[in-house]
């Protein structure tokens, strides 16, 4: 569960990135967060990952109050969140298998579990045959699927996808969102930040719109095939 209560963020430069946000996303929800550049989407994600602190208000994520969480516990919070970035952020010196297994090693998972879990998630994203490949040998779409596999390998409560389709072919964008939808159907909360309205119109669901640091729209929208 994610909850923002009167959250504001003002950067040291004086820019008000978020202005009194109130938002609740329940477990198992799928929500698109849309908005133009500078609307506050990135700030919202940084808050969820405890990369920055709110200037005022309270942020609750998966049972952690981010205002009160100790620095040492931030790694524990992040283990409950899977993140997919626009630029994939895979470790270039590790193979696909190693990139995903790393997340399980971080949580001190048993070797046997790692050996069965990693091939399983790679199969889910359709990359079973790329285990020994290095990220640079993959296409953008494939790299994003590896990033998705990495995000879900430790069964997080929440997946945050920050413009996951921004660096891949439009055709493949639909596959990525399909995958996210599939993960959501298994009970994982998914927050997808995007500025691709076609995707939002196509898939529908809860849409939260940010403008100048405020929520201007938060409603369920019906999906269609029209945008594809």
């Amino acid at each position, binding site marked *: 569960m994610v909850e923002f209560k009167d959250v504001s963020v003002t950067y040291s430069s004086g820019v008000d990135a978020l202005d009194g946000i109130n938002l609740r996303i329940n477990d198992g929800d799928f929500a698109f967060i849309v908005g133009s550049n500078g609307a506050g989407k990135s700030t919202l994600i940084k808050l969820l990952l405890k990369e920055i602190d709110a200037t005022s208000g309270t942020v609750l994520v998966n049972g952690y109050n981010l205002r009160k969480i100790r620095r040492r516990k931030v*790694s524990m919070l992040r283990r409950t969140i899977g993140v997919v970035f626009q630029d994939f952020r895979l470790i270039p010196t590790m193979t696909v298998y190693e990139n995903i297994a790393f997340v399980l090693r971080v949580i001190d998972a048993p070797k046997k579990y790692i050996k069965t879990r990693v091939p399983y998630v790679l199969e889910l994203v359709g990359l079973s045959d790329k285990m020994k490949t290095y990220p640079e040998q993959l296409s953008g779409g494939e790299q994003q699927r590896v990033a998705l596999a990495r995000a879900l390998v430790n069964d997080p409560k929440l997946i945050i996808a920050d413009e996951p389709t921004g660096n891949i072919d439009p055709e493949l964008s639909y596959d990525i969102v399909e995958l996210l939808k599939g993960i959501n159907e298994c009970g994982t909360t998914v927050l997808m930040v995007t500025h691709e309205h076609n995707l939002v119109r196509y898939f529908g669901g809860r849409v939260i719109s940010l403008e100048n640091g405020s929520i201007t729209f938060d409603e369920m929208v019906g999906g269609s095939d029209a945008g594809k």
Partner: protein
Amino acid sequence: MRVSSAGYLVKQGVTGVWKNRMMSFASFCIMLVSLMLVGISILAGINISRIISGIEAQNEIFVVLKPEVTQADIDKLYVEFNNISNVTDVTFYSKDQAWADMIADMTQQEREAMQYGNGDNPLPDTFRVKIADLEIMDITSSQLTTFDMVESIQSPESFATALISLRNVAALITSAVVIALMIICLVIISNTTRTSVHARRKEINIMKYVGATNSFIRIPFFIEGMLIGILAAIGALILTRFAYIELYNVITEQLQGLQMMGSKPLYSFSSISTYVTIAYLAAGTVIGALGTTISAGKYLKV
């Protein structure tokens, strides 16, 4: 932490050296040269100090005894001189021996001239006293004059003062060079490790996002830095050994004159190799491991 996880982190550290081979090689070279420069400076310093201390040790105070001194007095003085704390060696030089040596050193002409004298030995009995610390030579001299049967003292105090000044200046220059080199090397090593880690800041960033603790990220960097440091230390040790032996041969040949003045020979490499090996390995390991770990720490604040 599981044994398998610990093993994984160690393996990551070891393979990290190869995976980031360009930066590893740069760190290796910088550390090798730095260790060598500092190491050779220190070795030069301790050898200069050894040469000077050897010359210092040859300084003797001549204690001239009164003409009426008896064998019993001489035996007593020998024991009492040896009991003075700064005295390292006491040698009795009898007037008969001094006379014989003087005659032996004379030319034939001088010996013939001596025959016109009355044949009496005018030389006194003396003690030659070697001391440990030149800086308190005057105090030791005063102590020696307090004995009844001592007529006078001859101590080379001005030479001693010059030697002390030389030793102090040499120690100062050596320390200054070593400290300056150490600072320069630490700055260069720190910059190199920082650049090496900077190149991998994204990697560290990703690790933080997936929930890795700081120690989980640091351990491979620590092992990687330590390995590079050890390898650099081994390289520096081999090169230092080679350079030292070559210099040892050249300098030993050149310093034969100084050795005649009582200077001690340079340390042979075999006599100091254990200390040099330990010092190089310890310095390489600590600098490598800490340098990399501290640099990585900068990027952990995500």
